[in-house]
Every structure is written in structure tokens, then in C-alpha cells.
């Protein structure tokens, strides 16, 4: 694979179940070491997309290249370069944490290369996900958050070049969430692992993502960094200030001009000035609402056309 090839390249991906279109032309790409977050409301097609890329589901149409291969046809050597963090339940409950990681890791040994030593040494891995104290514990006895950290460990035991995480932090307490975010940063910065994760937690998307893809109604409706997305939506900024002991709030499209005029008018009488640009959450809500409204109006147009 040459360096110019992206790790992940998806073009016009479509998925149809019966007569329902779940994905209607999804296109995106990811570079090596990039953290891409797939964000979207429930039913937007996030899991379907990720399962197609993992090779667990066969697409209806479109071109997909994952680590240079088509997931629908790729073999075990390809799978060895991939990490999948599944939504767990109660599998391997009788196994002990260290024993399970050691066992699952052993499958990757045959796929080690001079550049990538596989698997991840089990004690280092256990420590990296913070389960050293539970290494000899049975999996069924772990708490929800510990179990989730084990899932992450299983996902990275083969030192993947590309890691898929489907809703990774469900059930994490704030401390575990912070540790998980540190781990993701470490994987992408130090090991140059490319990471695609799905979430509906905006805060998490903002913290982790180099790039956010917003998926709604089976399409990517926005693609960019958290900052770019906020700028893209020309939402109004909120300006708060105090004057003569009174508190004022005003919304303006062009906050800079408004504030300049405010000072020209009142000068030093203005105190406690605050300018808030619309948050990622506002942006996200606006985009999803627009997309849904767009679809509704498109449906209405089609309906009128039929009359």
C-alpha cells in the first residue's frame, strides 16, 4: 500500500434493507493517525456504516476501501490489522481478564511484522486500560466500566492500524471517561492508529475528534473539525453585558460589529462582557433539524410533483 492511499476511503456508500434506504450515498475518507468521529441521532445509520467497514455486513452499493482492501472480500491478514471494539454483553464471562487477553492476542502473533510487533504484551495492555488490579478477576465479575475497558483492550490487543469503536464510553464514570480519552489520544499520537468512533455524546466528539462527520438521514450532512462546523452554521452569537447595575442579553449574527458599537455608545459603562459563539451542540441541532426539514420538504415536493 503506498503512502498516498488513505486508510479509509468510502464513496457513495448505499445500504438498503428491503425497501428502506438506510444509507443514501455516504462519502468520506480518513488519513493515517486521524481520529474521526461519526456523530448522529439514533437510526441515522452509524452502526450500519461501521459494520460495513468492519466487514460484518455487505453493502448494497458504493465503493469502500479499508486499509487498501474491500472489507466484503478481505481475508484474515487484513483482519489482523484491524481493531474492533464491540458493544459487549456477557461473552467469555468465565474467563479471567489476563487469560482472555493473552488468548485473543495469540491469534495476532502470526501477523506480526518487523514494523508492528503483535500482539501487545499482555501486562502492558492490562496496565494501559487500567485493569491491573482486576487482571485475575473473572470477566463476569467486572463492573460495567471495567468490562468496557476490557472491550477496548480486546480491540487493541493486535496493535491495529485502524480501530473501530462503536459507542465506546457507554457506562463510563467521568474518571474512566477521562482515562479512555487519554488512551485514544495516546493511540492516535504515539502509535499513529487511525480511529473511527461513533457516539451521540457531543462533548466526547468535541474532545476526541480531529474531524467530525455528522450522519443524518443516511447522509453525511457535515464534515469538519468541531471549530469548522461551528463556523459553518451561521448561527447567531450570544452577547451578555452589564451596564449601570443591569444585566443585558442580545443575540447578533455579527458579534464583533455589535460589540464595537456597544462600546462606542457606552464606553467604560460596559462591564462583565461575555460573547458566546454557538456551541457544537447548537450547530449539531441546527444541522440535524435542517437535514430533517430538507427531507420533509423534498418529500413534499415529490408529493406535489406526483399530483
Amino acid at each position, binding site marked *: 500500500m503506498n503512502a498516498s492511499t488513505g486508510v479509509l476511503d468510502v464513496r457513495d456508500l448505499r445500504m438498503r434493507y428491503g425497501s428502506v434506504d438506510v444509507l443514501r450515498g455516504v462519502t468520506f475518507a480518513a488519513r493515517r493517525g486521524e481520529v474521526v468521529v461519526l456523530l448522529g441521532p439514533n437510526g441515522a445509520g452509524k*452502526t*450500519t456504516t*461501521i*459494520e460495513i467497514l*468492519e466487514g*460484518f*455486513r455487505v453493502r448494497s452499493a458504493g465503493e469502500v476501501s479499508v486499509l487498501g482492501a474491500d472489507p466484503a472480500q478481505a481475508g*484474515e*491478514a487484513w*483482519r*489482523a490489522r484491524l481493531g*474492533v471494539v*464491540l*458493544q*459487549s*454483553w*456477557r*461473552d*467469555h*464471562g*468465565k*474467563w479471567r481478564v489476563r*487469560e482472555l487477553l493473552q*488468548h*485473543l492476542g*495469540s*491469534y*495476532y*502473533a*502470526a*501477523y506480526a511484522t518487523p514494523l508492528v510487533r503483535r500482539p501487545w504484551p499482555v501486562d502492558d495492555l492490562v496496565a494501559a486500560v487500567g485493569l491491573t488490579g482486576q487482571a485475575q478477576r473473572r470477566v463476569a465479575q467486572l463492573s460495567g466500566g471495567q468490562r468496557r475497558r476490557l472491550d477496548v483492550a*480486546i480491540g487493541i490487543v*493486535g496493535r491495529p492500524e485502524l480501530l473501530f469503536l*462503536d459507542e465506546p464510553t457507554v457506562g463510563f464514570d467521568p474518571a474512566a471517561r477521562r482515562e479512555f480519552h487519554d488512551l485514544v489520544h495516546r493511540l492516535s499520537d504515539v502509535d499513529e492508529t487511525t480511529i473511527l468512533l461513533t457516539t451521540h455524546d457531543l462533548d466526547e466528539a468535541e474532545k476526541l475528534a480531529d474531524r467530525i462527520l455528522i450522519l443524518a438521514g443516511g447522509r453525511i450532512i457535515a464534515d469538519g473539525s468541531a471549530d469548522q462546523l461551528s463556523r459553518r452554521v451561521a448561527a447567531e452569537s450570544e452577547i451578555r453585558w452589564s451596564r449601570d447595575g443591569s444585566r443585558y442579553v442580545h443575540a447578533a449574527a455579527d458579534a464583533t460589529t455589535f460589540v464595537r458599537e456597544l462600546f462606542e455608545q457606552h464606553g467604560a459603562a460596559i462591564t462583565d462582557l461575555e460573547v458566546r459563539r454557538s456551541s457544537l451542540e447548537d450547530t449539531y441541532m441546527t444541522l440535524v433539524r435542517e437535514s430533517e426539514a430538507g427531507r420533509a420538504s423534498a418529500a413534499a415536493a415529490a408529493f406535489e410533483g406526483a399530483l
Partner: protein
Amino acid sequence: MTSLRTVGRAGFARGVIELRQSFTTAQDLWAYLFPAVAFVVTIFFMRDHELAGTGVSLGARTLPSVLGMGLAFAGVQTIAAQLAVEREDGTLLRAKATPDGMSGYLVGKIVLVGGMSLISILLQLVPSLFLVDGVRLDAVGWLTLIWLVPLGLAATLPLGAVVGSLVDNPRNVGFITLPLFGLVAISGIFYPITAIPGWLQAVAQGFPVYWLGLGMRSAFLPDSLTVVELGHSWRLGETAGVLGLWAVAGLALAPAVLRRMARRESGSAVARRRERALQRVT
């Protein structure tokens, strides 16, 4: 191929680990001990019934027959139940997400079921030997066991794998136990097959249970006991033939069925089953 060796080793390790786990899990221990206890009690009550003019007790005849039955149950039911349960709880998906994981999983299951069968056989055999006379194992008997046990597992394991792949809900695995018990009733396990009508004999001879029982009897009992068998012979050639046919048919069918089942596994499929299972509980 290095990866083939890795798979063999990883799969074997997996089977051994799961076998060890079966000794420390109450539910699995019960699965070992309950049949053994029930069996020893049965043999105990049968020990004084002499088998029509042979000088051998009914208990002595039943002992090897039940070992054969146990092998068929282990092969079909254990693997079917394991597949259905581990498909629901996500173990199989985990295997699918691991390179060569599915092959390793299957090797592991074969090691596990083979090991569990041997342990069950010993648990039933050893205490029973003290209760009944007439059961012995000579060199020829050992030789028979050496080909019969692996062939029996080869005839029944793929069948169990097919059933386990087709059943989507672990609760329904119980339904295959019923026809198995029906087969046991007509297969001459607890009483000589010569005592049942001819057409039922014909049905029984189409399935592995009868032949496994017969083969086990040939290994453990004196040849004089063939008087209560069909054709007054142990019919080892036919035993190998029928079991071999089941093994070939099963091995031809199972990979395709397993692949089809594995192809359909995905995170959302597991999530759907989880939803259903949670609804069952509440």
C-alpha cells in the same frame, strides 16, 4: 503455513482453558455429576436382572450402551447448546473479529467437547465397574474404543454444529433433546433392540445412537452377548460404515451452514438478541 499452526495451537489452548473452567463452574459440575449419579443408580437397580439366559446382568449390558448414548448427546447437544448460547452472548462475534478466530473457536469446541466426553465416560464407568460383573476391557476392546470414540464424535459434532447454527434462540435447543430421547428409547440402550418391532429397529439403525451403543457393547462385553443383538453379531463393519456416513455428510454440510451463520453475525445482530433476552428476564 504459520497461521495454520497458530490456529491449531490457539484453538487447543482455548479448549483446554474452557475445559478447566468447567471444573470450577457449579453449572458445569452439575452437568458432569448428575448423569453420572443417575446412571450409577440405574445400574445399581439393574444389577440383579439377568439377561435372558446369558448369565450376564442387564446392568452390565446397559453400562456400555449408556456410554455410547452419552457420546451422542455430547456430540449433538453440547455443541448445539454452546453455539446457540455463545452466538447470543457475543462470543462468536468476538471470534469473528479476531484473525482466524472462527477456526480457533471451532478447534477449541472440539477439544472441549472431546474432553468433556472423556471425563463423563470416566465418571460413569469407574463407579459402575464396582457394581456389576461381566464388564471388562481387553486389548481388542481398547482398539475398538480408539477408533469408535473419535468416529462417534466426528459423526455427531458436525450435526450438533448444524443444529446450533440453525437455532437462533438458546431456549429452543431443548427441542432437539426430545427427538434424541425418542431415539434413545428405540436404540437398544436400556433394553436389547431385539425386543422392539422390526420397523422401529429399522428407524433406529439409521441414526448414530444405536451404533454408538452397539460399538461400546462390543468393546466392553463378552462375545457371547451377541445373542441379544441383531444378526447375532457386533457388526463392527456396519458400525464404522454408518457412523462414517454420518461423519462425511456432517462434515460436508457443517462448514457451509457454519459459514452462513457466521456471515450473519454482527454487532447489531447480537444487540437484537440481547434485547430479546432482556425482555425474557423481565
